[in-house]
């Protein structure tokens, strides 16, 4: 099956085609003006100097000003492109789990492909980063329609394997995408939370509009196993032989605490968060989320 058919479901595309993905925060837009774009670019006219703050790329420091005033200033230029969206797709081992027709990896890739289609259709630039504990594939941002194929191919070749290391990934992303844009993280977020929140905060500090699609399987949310079962870790060499029904209550409790923590962490950093079940129809989930986001924007 070609990768484009694997991840691009016509019914899902049809359903979301009438919607569009808008940036909640100010981004530059010159095509149809749907995105306000205060991004500072390098190739356009100089706009202003700004005092250096830790985290700014050293390449943007204006050494001439430093030589004159002994102060660090960074030069800022007016951006000349449209909305730049980057899809961060988790392809770690834990995404390989799935009890239904699609595992989390496939579900996540489908979301990514659908969104890429949507963004390209509205002439926005879309890039893609597939990662596990490091960045596996990186597809630069382009606005060409044909770029969709490159994204889909990149997703298809990223078979899930390693464990996730989000903090360093997000740091890397923040550094490599200095312009404000839309970052869409698609992951099961089964990572160390402190690192996750630090990474998200960093992205926000860089002015990115961040969207998190939290993809979990039904079994992970409901844990309706019966009979003696041996659970073997997908990312770590852990295993547990148990009667799942005996542990269900404790599991759901721990899961609830975790989900609440993630939700709260995202809300604190101004990150849009959506929990998606792999059993949910993809189009409905996306449509509901995008409509919700549009509603928020109008406010």
């Amino acid at each position, binding site marked *: 099956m070609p990768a484009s058919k694997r991840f691009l479901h016509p019914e899902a595309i049809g359903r979301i085609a009438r919607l569009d993905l808008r940036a909640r925060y100010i981004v530059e837009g010159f095509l149809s003006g749907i995105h306000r774009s205060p991004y500072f670019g390098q190739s356009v006219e100089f706009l202003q100097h700004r005092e250096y703050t830790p985290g700014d790329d050293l390449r943007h420091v204006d050494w001439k000003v430093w030589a004159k005033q002994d102060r660090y200033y960074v030069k800022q230029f007016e951006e000349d492109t449209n909305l730049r969206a980057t899809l961060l797709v988790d392809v770690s081992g834990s995404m390989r789990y799935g009890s239904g027709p699609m595992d989390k990896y496939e579900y996540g890739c489908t979301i990514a492909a659908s969104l890429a289609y949507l963004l390209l259709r509205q002439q926005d630039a879309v890039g893609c980063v597939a990662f596990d504990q490091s960045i596996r594939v990186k597809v630069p941002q382009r606005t060409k329609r044909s770029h969709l194929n490159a994204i889909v191919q990149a997703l298809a070749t990223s078979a899930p394997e390693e464990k996730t290391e989000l903090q360093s990934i997000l740091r890397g992303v923040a550094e490599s995408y200095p312009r404000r844009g839309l970052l869409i993280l698609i992951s099961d977020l*089964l990572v160390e939370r402190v690192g996750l929140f630090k990474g998200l905060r960093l992205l926000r500090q860089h002015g990115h509009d961040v969207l998190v699609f939290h993809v979990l399987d039904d079994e992970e949310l409901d844990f309706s196993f*019966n009979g*003696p079962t*041996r659970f073997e870790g*997908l990312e770590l060499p*852990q295993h547990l032989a148990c009667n799942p029904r005996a542990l269900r209550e*404790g599991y759901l409790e721990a*899961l609830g605490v975790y989900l609440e923590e993630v939700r709260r962490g995202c809300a604190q950093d101004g990150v849009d968060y959506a929990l998606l079940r792999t059993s949910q129809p993809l189009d409905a989930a996306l449509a509901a989320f995008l409509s919700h986001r549009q509603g928020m924007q109008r406010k």
Partner: protein
Amino acid sequence: MPSFIHESLLWWGLPLVGVPILIHLINLMRHRRVSWAAMEFLLQSQKRHQKSILFKQLLLLLLRMLAVAAVVLMVAQPLVRNQWGAMFGGSKTHHVVLLDDSFSMSDRWADTSAFQQAKQVVSRLAAQAGHQDTRQVFTLLRFSRARQLARGTQPDLLQEPVDANFQAELEKVLGPLQPSETAAEPQDALDAVERLPAKRQDEDRVIYVVSDFRAKEWQEPIALQKALRRLDEAGGQIHLIDCVDAVHPNLAIAALRPGAGTRAAGVPLLLEVAVRNFGAATAKQVSVSLEEDGHARPAVVFEDVPAGKLVTRRFPVLFATAGEHEIIARLQTDAVAADNLRSLVIDVPAAVDVLVIDGDARGQDAFFLTTALAPGGKITSGLKPLVESPRYLHDHPLESFETIYLLNIARLEPAEVAALEAYVKAGGGLGVFMGELSRADFFNEQLYRDGQGLFPLPLAGPAELLVDRLEKSPDLEVTDHPIFSVFAGERNSFLNTVVVSRYFAAQKNWNPSPESGTKVIASLRNKAPLAVEGKFGDGRVVVILTKASPLETSLGSWNNWGRDNPSYVVAMLEMQSYLSTARHPDSARLVGTPLEVPVDVARFLPQVRFVLPRSGGGGTLAVDAATSQTGHSAILNETGAGGIYQAQLTGADGSQRAERFAFNVAPEEGDLHKLDGPQLAARLEGIRYEFHQAGDINYSPQQLAGLNLSESLLYFLIAILLGEQLLAYACSYHPSAKGGAR
């Protein structure tokens, strides 16, 4: 420490307790493998609940092992000794089985019988006594042998140790046992238990009465109550085991006997056969087939025999030859066979000797009487009267005479009186007619003796019955007595034409008490007694207070009875029959009673050969004559079967003499009405015993002697299984109702 009925099952069953562990281990191997992403939360949950889960799982495993153990124990049936067992703590159990073998136990239904059930019960009791840890001994005593126990007979089994070979030995004893034809009673058996070797301190004695509990024996069991109470107080455990499921209808031939009348060759004799219906419904068209000397006779058919009633029919027989004749009556087959057959041996002489003593040498009275008794010519009455003077009484033996008549006696010598009294006492019949020679003083002093003598009434003297022209009632008024019953209901009875002019009056104020057996059987128009019956010893005396002859005397004519009045002949023959009945008591011999045959050692060898009836297995038995109070006699104790026994005596000259005796069952034993448990309980109040149906004896004697924990274990098992289910639910081992298993 409890013992077990099926101890061997423990060895097989207890290893099964490990099965839940095995299943657990197999389940561990059968774990489904799931690659799982969210291990973090699973491990958190595991860490938090590890202890409680482990505890619950161990508890669950324990409960399952307990459940298996409970099932195994329940099947093995543990026993703990009951209070009695604990109290006496016996090291030995003595099982005393009293087996009812009276013929009511031959009660058949379907393809079994009460006795068969009883044998199975005994067998089962013995088989399971073998499983007991402690020493067991077994005694088996049949009811029919219980009475003989005092005479030195041994029980069928006496304190036999119950070992590996015992069951085979018991089967050897039980196998050939059949119900006897005796009416052996439980009383004898219970009394016999006390004659067994005394119960030792360390011995538990369990007494089983295996019987049919018929109402006739247990309806008012006062003696049985006493015997059972004694056994109870002596520490025996009593178990009454009923071998009959329901009351079955039964007919019995209750009697087969000769009716009144002269028994002589060539003289027709009426025999009586009686059938009793012990069932609950009227029996219709009951046919009793008859056999006379081995030849079939026409059957006697009873149209109806109502429930619980006895119906008697008469049939005539004519024995052409003198000697012993056999009559056998048979009923059709029913529940109990033994009482469907009855036999009779009747000794018929060529002629019956009658002694007539006439006080008057002319013999006028004797003429009329002997003419009436033996008219001669073609008519035969079977009677052979011998007319003699009073002296004959003293000079000759009187035993050979069926009856003796005293006619118009003036007086008798004391020796003659003594001989006469001895004769009557031994069962002879005496008829007395008065006359002009008779003296009241002699009769009162020598024969009446204030009621001590054989004469039944004191006399006042001759009297005249005054003629009353206006009086139309007959002179003779008779009662419903066998002598006169033949006239009962007849119109214009010839008795009414009898005129009595003279008679001997009884003393005034004479009024016989009903207990004395003396009664007036005919009286005159003036209410003076004319015929009086009395009893003396085994014999009977009938006194007619007028003359036997109607002829004129010095005092004139006494009556006209003997002249031209056929009733005289009839009444005299009836009187002869009545008086001779005492000589032939209805000697119904019961099976089981010893047969004693006197042997005159001067004429016969002192050994008697008994030929046993075919129903008793046939064969012969030689019994030596032993000295008894009355001389020499041979006693046959083996009379357990009904039928005809023959005693053969061999003369000193080699000649043979045979006598036959009919032995019949007690017809009451055929009454199959029985008492059930509650009815028995009401009658045996205060006695500790247990009542069982034969079918219930599937448990062991240990159960009888101890408490079986199986039932308690069953409840325990139910509780364990409930607990297991609850705990398994709590441990979430039940598949969830919704969502299905994954």
